């Protein structure tokens, strides 16, 4: 893979275990990811997909690496927009690092092509998802209930 197209970092006042559960449990994910949830058994080499509330698949791929509660690497392809799906697989890396009373959450995404529409789409989505996740873990409420 080439260098990451973007690197997003947020600090959340929680523990790595709690953040990991929030990132991987379907009930919790639905709350901050606009109703979307993961379907996978969270084992290296297993298939992974994200599903809309109506059952359509948003993105799919494979668990490349998993080291709870530190690091998760996903092979990631869009499934519901043909122009994004045709770009093929990207790679998303999620890292958790405890720093003082918070956890540093780093999301990077890379793809082997310039001007990727997939990267443009996910880079717009992540800040909203991260901001919801942060407020949900820190205050118990999400900032945005629906996609604005």
């Amino acid at each position, binding site marked *: 893979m080439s260098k990451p197209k973007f690197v997003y970092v947020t600090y959340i006042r929680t523990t790595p275990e709690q953040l990991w559960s929030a990132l991987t449990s379907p009930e919790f994910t639905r709350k901050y990811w606009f109703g979307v949830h993961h379907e996978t058994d969270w084992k290296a080499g297993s298939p992974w997909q994200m599903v809309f509330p109506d059952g359509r698949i948003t993105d799919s791929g494979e668990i490349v690496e998993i080291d709870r509660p530190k690091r998760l690497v996903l092979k990631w392809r869009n499934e519901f927009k043909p122009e994004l799906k045709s770009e093929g697989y990207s790679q998303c890396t999620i890292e958790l690092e405890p720093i003082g009373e918070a956890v540093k959450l780093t999301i990077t995404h890379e793809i082997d092509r310039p001007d990727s529409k997939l990267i443009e789409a996910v880079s717009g989505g992540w*800040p909203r998802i991260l901001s919801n996740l942060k407020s949900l873990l820190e205050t118990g409420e999400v900032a945005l209930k629906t996609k604005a």
Partner: protein
Amino acid sequence: MDAVFKALADASRRELLDRLRADNGQTLGQLCERLAMTRQAVSKHLAILEEANLVATIKRGREKLHYLNPVPIHEIGERWIGKFERSRLQALSDMKKALEAGDE
């Protein structure tokens, strides 16, 4: 949040963010090119931006790559700009851009 506003209250630092927005993931050396700042000054500004979490860095081999991290700015928007106001603000901003582009 003080750190974010302090970091943004400097034209040189905003210029560094603009350069990362145009081309994300640059080394210190690349950022210093075509800038009227010493390497030391750029390095100091980057440290302030990183402290405010406006710049995120990763190591690639021996290189340190700098990325614009929009998350804190998004959080500021979230705090003061309600989602119902967003479309009206977007319309105003589009109109301003269109009108000002005509002046050039």
